[in-house]
């Protein structure tokens, strides 16, 4: 079965890349692993007969968002993540949450497997780009407009946030931070 083989190939690739993303301390390695997750998910969308979403996944996530993230990593010249110094209970919290969510996942898997199987209608046109476009500009016009306003707000907000403020005390804060670090090094 080609479909089964493809699903397991890309699902395995996605999970492996996701684990590698969380495991690596270097943010650049994490970013490249995340691109691997996006590309495997895009291939899974193709097997789910959603070519528009697959293309948009590559364009927006692997193209725009990850380029922005890699750009910020390069711009800030980050060093490697230092080892965990936070409180011990975070390990228990993270592990507990992970086990809980995995248990929930397997419960959903079991429950959906038990439910009567939904056969895919071979003649369905759902997911064709034409259908998505028609739904977007007729039935769901208002959400599309709201998303447009949201993107405009995000652009204005990020420009205001990233602009270098002409406030002298901001530089003072940075100087004080550098002094504090130098003192820490001397100690």
């Amino acid at each position, binding site marked *: *079965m080609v479909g089964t083989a493809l699903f*397991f190939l890309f*699902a395995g690739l*996605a*999970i492996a890349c996701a*684990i590698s993303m*969380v495991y690596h301390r270097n*943010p650049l390695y*994490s*970013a490249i692993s*995340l691109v691997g997750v*996006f590309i495997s998910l895009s291939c899974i969308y193709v*097997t*789910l*007969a*959603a070519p528009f*979403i697959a293309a*948009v*996944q590559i364009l*927006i*996530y692997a193209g*725009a*968002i990850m380029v*922005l*993230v890699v750009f*910020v*990593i390069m*711009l800030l010249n980050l060093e490697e*993540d*230092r080892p965990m110094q*936070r409180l011990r209970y*975070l390990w228990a919290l*993270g*592990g507990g949450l*992970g086990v809980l*969510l*995995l248990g929930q*996942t*397997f419960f*959903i*898997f079991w429950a*959906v*497997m038990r439910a009567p*199987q*939904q056969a*895919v209608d071979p003649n369905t046109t*759902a*997911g064709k780009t034409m259908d*998505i476009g028609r*739904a977007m500009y007729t039935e*769901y016009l208002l*959400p599309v407009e709201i998303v447009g306003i*949201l*993107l405009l707000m*995000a*652009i204005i907000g*990020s420009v205001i*946030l*990233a602009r*270098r403020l002409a406030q002298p005390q901001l530089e003072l804060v940075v100087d004080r931070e550098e002094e504090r670090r130098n003192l820490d090094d001397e100690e």
Partner: protein
Amino acid sequence: MEPTLASYLALSGILFTIGCVGVIFKRNAIGMFMCIELMLNAVNLTFVAFSRYYADTTGQLFVFMVMSVAAAEAAVGLGIIIAFYRNRLSVDVDDASMMKN
């Protein structure tokens, strides 16, 4: 065994779990940001799988909306990270304790 709706939901759940645990374990603000993107992608996969198995386009439409919100979040989130780095010379979330005292 042909992949069914349950297999896609299981894959999505596993990816969501990895992202959620990553948010707690990462100290780096950019690492946390990438884990959140992973969680959004896991949810997108359930939308597309349900859209396929119930033959309804609405799911894919909302994947598009989620992607737009993720793009807006990326722009604003990275702007905040850059502003934070300028103030503290670090993107470590443990250093974000200015309001504690």
